[in-house]
């Protein structure tokens, strides 16, 4: 049965999207490019950098990931996920042409408009580059709005770095400074990047905090150790942003599990400034 009364939609019903392209990124990590099956859905859909959705395989369940593509790239969305649980395993075995469900976009966005004229420092770890990739491409597609752009990206090993092709592209762009790093022991003989944990590399290569916005995405432990480094480098907490990834089910503030203190990651976040986080308990 078609949903006819769009003024009164059932908030649990997902869009149907076709997997147009699957890109293997790293062991267990894939990127899906998804297109709306319904042309009206495609025309009406908009989102902003930082937002996320619930991706599903019908009959298996839903899983939460950010939208990893930039809103400046129209006509599709992309998501990148690691195969970990039941739903991500079912997604991982899906093929190009298959249909998946998507609910979203949910959550707030990175205040990119407020960053005009500033330097941007992107810091990402592991599988947390995808939420940042959306912002990076959004800013690169509006390159003239920003001053220096620095990207620091680290993973456990060379193999675990995602978006290898795009890393190459950013490395070759004269208007981007890219620093990649791998954890000690994760390097290969021909590795030319840094070796060391992300916070350590940030301290070593970060640009001046003067007129710079830092955007940090990573596992909780990386975030925890990177914030103090940025503070030491004199970044004001209000100029540091992150996106939190607590476990979610609904995405719209009802299922009750993603809150950090009084704020729901799904509705009040996922984007938070460090200034905001300082006032919240460490429930993430």
């Amino acid at each position, binding site marked *: *049965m078609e*949903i*006819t*009364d769009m003024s*009164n*939609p*059932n*908030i*649990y*019903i997902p869009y*149907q999207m076709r997997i147009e392209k699957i890109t293997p990124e790293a062991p267990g990590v894939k990127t899906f490019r998804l297109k709306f*099956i319904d042309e009206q859905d495609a025309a009406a859909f908009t989102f902003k950098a930082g937002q996320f959705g619930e991706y*599903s*395989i*019908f*009959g*298996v*369940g*839903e899983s939460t990931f950010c939208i990893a593509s930039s809103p400046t790239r129209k006509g599709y969305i992309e998501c990148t996920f*690691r195969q*970990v*649980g039941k739903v*991500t395993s079912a997604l991982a075995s899906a093929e190009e042409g298959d*249909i998946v469900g998507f609910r979203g976009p949910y959550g707030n966005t990175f205040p990119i408009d407020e960053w005009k004229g500033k330097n941007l420092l992107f810091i990402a770890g592991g599988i947390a580059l995808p939420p940042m990739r959306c912002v990076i491409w959004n800013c690169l597609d509006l390159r003239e709005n920003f001053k220096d752009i620095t990207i620091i990206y680290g993973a456990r090993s060379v193999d675990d770095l995602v978006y290898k092709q795009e890393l190459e592209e950013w490395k070759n762009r004269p208007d981007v400074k890219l620093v990649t790093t791998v954890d000690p022991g994760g390097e290969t003989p021909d590795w030319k990047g840094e070796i060391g944990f992300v916070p350590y590399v940030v301290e070593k290569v970060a640009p001046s905090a003067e007129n710079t916005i830092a955007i940090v995405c990573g*596992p*909780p432990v990386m975030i925890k150790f990177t914030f103090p480094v940025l503070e030491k480098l004199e970044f004001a907490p209000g100029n540091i942003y992150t996106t939190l*990834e*607590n*476990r979610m*089910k*609904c995405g*719209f*503030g*009802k*299922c*009750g*599990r*993603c*809150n*950090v*203190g*009084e704020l729901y990651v799904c*509705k009040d976040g996922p984007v938070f400034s460090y200034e905001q986080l300082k006032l919240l*308990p*460490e*429930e*993430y």
Partner: protein
Amino acid sequence: MVVMRTENYSIKKPSIEKLFDNLAERGKTIYAPKNNGERVLFQKIKNFGEMAGDYLVTANSAKEVVFPRYEKVFSYKKTEDGILIDDPADIPFPEVVLWGSRPCDAAAFIPLTNIFEQDYTDNLYSNRRKNLLVLSFSCDTCDEFCFCTSVNGGPGNTAGSDILFTKLSTGDFLAEIITEKGKKVVEENPSLFEASPTEEKEGNLAKVETRFNQDEIQAKLHELFEDPLWAEKSRACLGCGSCVFVCPVCSCFDIQDEAHGSHGTRLRCWDSCGFSLFTLHASGHNPRPDQGARWRQRILHKFRYMPDKSKVAGCVGCGRCSRSCPAGINILDTVTAL
């Protein structure tokens, strides 16, 4: 919900039974307290005689009437032409009567509606709630677990009910008509409702001791996130979720799929903040790693986050959680120790 100025009527005991029969004859689904041999539960009944004669509160709460234990949010069918989705909200929801709810049961619909209608409206809930007629009966007894008066409620509180009946010393009932829906019941059954009684209801209500002040607790909870009390008060907790399942306000849920070959359903199922898997990340990291953190979340959600956001606490003082806890944890022990 349209709330009007309360109109009072008197209704005789036999007329109450007649009212039930009239509603049943009109084909309405009626949920009422029924003794299943061990416990009194809200269950579907057809005849007045099936109802439990004597009960303080039911073991389960009335939330299941509007927020079922598990509910199909949609079903799907995989075909050669794609996936066909069937929206249950397209089918009209039945008119349901909740009969014999206590004032605490009725009051719980207010915070429950706040959750399901804040920012995004959950139509499955809303449609059920809109089609629900709440006919409550005041309490003339209470037990040591009751604390409605501490959370802005009371044994004769009208909030959330369409009609509140209170048994008077004469054996007749005072019928307070609280909403337009309640008024319609009077209009449809004019011969059953008589002129307002002269007796006040207050003398006929249970005396429920006030155990704490909700506003003070709400203020205190802004300071107590890190406190040894959470671990201490939850030490006996088994994480079984029984408190959550019987709670009339707890509405945290999970979303799960059930597949049968090429078709299946997506379900919204009750969940509990007390379960260890509730907040567990795929990576193995858990932001609420122990039972103390989970118990803190339950108390903070009810007594601070919800009233901060929508002025109404997430607890109505029915005491079900404490009565049902297999480990003997009483929520009052935590709240009064803050």
